[in-house]
């Protein structure tokens, strides 16, 4: 079929070039000017004959390609490089961040640099006027923040409203009223919009940096990540003063339409004055005006915010609002259902059934649920972390429905979904589900919904902890290489989880590598982590090469302790760590350093463990030096350890010591036994 089609096409082309060159001969006659090889010479040239089997050639519709389509196609062939730092940072070892705190501070520094540049550009616009860009790039020109129109007129008022200058526009409005000019309804409405949006305050200049978390209860994170405090509604307080400018202007307006009422209601709800909003709504109804869907969303929120009612009453009120909405023929949108679900979370157990009803209603109307919807549902069903009550299986249904879908942002809370989903997975200890969630994250553009830094860190910490817990060690190590440090910086708890996984799988030889990595991620001075590492290394005896590696690692850790001591006035070197380090030195054959460790015991006033002393005795025997053995006994007696007796006996039995040493030993033992008996008698007396 294709050959026929090409044949026809070739014939067509033949005709064309023959006409161009002016030769009147038939298509297959003289064709020296046709440069292509006509392989269809056998096809009959009469068009009229119906050759069976020829289908109609359907010319496909012309595709319009995006301007960056080629770039997007190329980009899809490249995966994330697991060894590189995120693109936002300069690619240099000095400038790549090594912990999450640093990465946040670097990104903030870069952003503040850009803001400083913008500030300079906007304060001296005359130096940046030269426009050499062809075509004109408007975003690279300086912006004007000062109002240009100086006289008192409605145009000036509109300009100030556009420039978002709250106080200036209110002043202009008052001046206009005093001058007696009538202000049109649209301008008054837009002024009301401005006032209600900003709550009668100026828009703050560092709005972007200080966007506080909304009234969500956030996860209690571990020590490095507890930046956010738990905020509830009531902490915001009422920021809507009565008789503020918005209400005053509202009262002064000669005519109000539904837009004015709606704006006022939404402003009141945004700034936490729900009762007044409900009053205004009744006024709206009395004036026989209609509210739009956004106002109804705000009213639902107002109903849910009112503190004094019981839960069932609240729910009934909300249902009544919905009925009024249907009566006014206002179609609900996604925000309506999301608002209902958001406030149903407060109802805890009572809210489960209404939540499912709401969700089904949403599906029935045909509104596509967004990620925020699922987030609220997950939070509602998995709120209490109490496994004895039996957990619901709704998350499996949710994930089955969501697999493979690509989302676009529709709700401000969309980026909370992955965090709560992973939290539920780790609560349920289900690795397959976690992989499903992670797969959803990597579908299409869904990675954009991972949220800001701390949420991403939380998600990946939980994910990796789950992997450490449940997955085989090789796969875990692969994930470790993949995720750390290019995606997130591990907290110490994550590293401890990884160490425990290594312990379970008996792969302790990876530990020196983990210690090296932890130093890079800023955990050098983290005592719990260091103790865990030392404990795992020192617990059992291993092969000689491994012991050497462990001893190097221990020496490294020791040096970090020492540099820590140098910094702080009160050196804290835990007794366990001293024990472990000494043991590791001994086992690797670094006896000189091990003896130095014993000296450190005295210096820091910590007591060496019994096994440690036994090991020292063993090594002294191996090196066959009685002087060392006596040193050990002296040390034990200095600490008044009960093991001193046993040690002395051992020394006497195993070593060849001369007379004075024997006497010294006996003195020591008598001293200790005296003190022992004294202390015993004291204790007895005390009892």
């Amino acid at each position, binding site marked *: 079929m294709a050959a026929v089609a090409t044949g026809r096409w070739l014939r067509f082309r033949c005709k064309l070039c023959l006409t161009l060159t002016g030769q009147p001969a038939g298509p297959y006659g003289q064709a020296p000017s046709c440069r292509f090889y006509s392989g269809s010479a056998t096809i009959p040239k009469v068009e009229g004959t119906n050759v069976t089997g020829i289908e109609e050639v359907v010319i496909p519709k012309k595709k319009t390609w995006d301007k960056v389509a080629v770039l997007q196609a190329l980009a899809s062939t490249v995966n994330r490089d697991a060894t590189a730092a995120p693109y936002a*940072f*300069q690619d*240099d070892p*000095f400038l790549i961040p090594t912990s999450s705190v640093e990465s946040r501070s*670097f990104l903030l*520094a870069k952003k503040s640099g*850009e803001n400083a*540049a913008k500030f300079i550009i906007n304060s001296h616009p005359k130096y940046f006027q*030269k426009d050499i860009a062809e075509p004109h790039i408007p975003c*690279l020109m300086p912006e004007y923040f000062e109002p240009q129109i100086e006289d008192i007129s409605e145009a000036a008022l509109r300009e100030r409203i556009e420039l978002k200058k709250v106080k200036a526009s209110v002043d202009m409005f008052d001046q206009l009223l005093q001058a007696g000019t009538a202000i049109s309804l649209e301008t008054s409405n837009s002024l009301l919009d401005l006032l209600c949006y900003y709550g009668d305050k100026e828009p703050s200049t560092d709005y972007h940096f200080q966007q506080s978390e909304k009234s969500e209860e956030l996860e209690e994170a571990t020590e490095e990540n507890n930046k956010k405090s738990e905020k509830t509604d009531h902490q915001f307080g009422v920021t809507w003063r009565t008789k503020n400018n918005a209400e005053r202007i509202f009262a002064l307006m000669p005519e109000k339409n539904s837009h004015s009422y709606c704006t006022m209601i939404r402003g009141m709800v945004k700034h936490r004055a729900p009762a007044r909003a409900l009053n205004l709504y009744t006024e709206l109804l009395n004036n026989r005006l209609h509210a739009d869907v956004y106002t109804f969303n705000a009213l639902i929120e107002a109903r849910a915010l009112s503190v004094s009612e019981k839960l069932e009453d609240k729910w009934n009120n909300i249902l009544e609002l919905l009925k009024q909405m249907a009566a006014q023929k206002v179609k609900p949108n996604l925000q309506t259902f999301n608002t209902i679900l958001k406030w149903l979370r407060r109802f805890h157990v009572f809210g489960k059934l209404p939540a499912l009803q709401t969700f089904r209603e949403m599906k029935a109307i045909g509104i596509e649920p967004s990620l925020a919807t699922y987030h609220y549902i997950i939070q509602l069903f998995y709120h209490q972390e109490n496994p004895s009550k039996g957990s619901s299986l709704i998350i499996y249904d949710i994930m089955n429905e969501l697999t493979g879908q690509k989302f676009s942002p529709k709700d401000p809370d969309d980026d909370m979904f992955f965090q709560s989903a992973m939290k539920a997975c780790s609560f349920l200890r289900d690795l397959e589900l976690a992989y499903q969630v992670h797969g959803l994250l990597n579908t299409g553009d869904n990675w954009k919904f991972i949220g800001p830094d701390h949420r991403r860190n939380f998600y990946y910490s939980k994910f990796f902890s789950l992997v450490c817990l449940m997955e085989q060690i090789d796969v875990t190590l692969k994930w470790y290489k993949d995720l750390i440090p290019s995606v997130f910086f591990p907290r110490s708890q994550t590293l401890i989880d990884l160490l425990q996984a290594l312990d379970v799988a008996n792969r302790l030889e990876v530990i020196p590598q983990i210690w090296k990595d932890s130093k890079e991620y800023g955990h050098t001075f983290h005592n719990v982590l260091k103790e865990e590492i030392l404990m795992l290394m020192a617990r059992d005896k291993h092969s000689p090469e491994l012991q050497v590696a462990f001893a190097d690692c221990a020496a490294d850790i020791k040096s970090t302790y020492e540099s820590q001591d140098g910094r702080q006035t009160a050196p804290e070197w835990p007794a366990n760590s001293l024990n472990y380090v000494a043991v590791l030195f001994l086992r690797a054959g670094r006896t000189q350093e091990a003896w130095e460790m014993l000296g450190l015991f005295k210096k820091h006033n910590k007591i060496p463990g019994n096994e440690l002393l036994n090991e020292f005795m063993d090594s002294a025997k191996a090196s066959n030096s009685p002087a060392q053995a006596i040193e050990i006994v002296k040390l034990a007696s200095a600490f008044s350890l009960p093991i001193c007796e046993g040690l002395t006996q051992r020394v006497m039995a195993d070593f060849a010591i001369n007379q004075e040493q024997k006497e010294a030993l006996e003195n020591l033992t008598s001293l200790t036994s005296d003190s022992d008996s004294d202390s015993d008698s004291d204790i007895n007396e005390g009892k």
Partner: protein
Amino acid sequence: MAAPVCCQGLGSRVLSWSQELLCSWCTLHTSAVCAKNRAARVRVGKGDKLVTYEEAHVPHYIAHRKGWLSRHTGNLDGENHAAEPTVEDVFLGKFMLGTFPRCPADQLILNRRANQLEICALVLRQLPAHKFHFLVGYSETLLSHFYKCPGPHLDKSPSLIF
């Protein structure tokens, strides 16, 4: 051009005489002599002078042992705006020297691709890292607004100094 020189040498009487004779009066601006065999060369001293690779090689080694500091298509046949990138280069050099105090270790390397500008600078680690990021963000935004091109991209390679 020789005539006025002679006039300058002679007395004023001769000057006025030549004014009547000549119709045009071209002025001559003289400056200090810049000999070509002393251009861009660091003179050899006792051997304690630290020089960079750039400074150590004289201009006739360009394209043999040295590269170019600024690459743009303005000097190709048929292209316009040959001089503007040069002026911009001087400005950018001074700008980077001022914005990153004590940091630039060597001359800047500037690449222009389409309408984008890439600045590669070798800097010393004199500033803490977050200050570097601040200054990088600041200079990128400021230069993109100044030259109306979408992304002066700064590539830095901080280096140690011996």
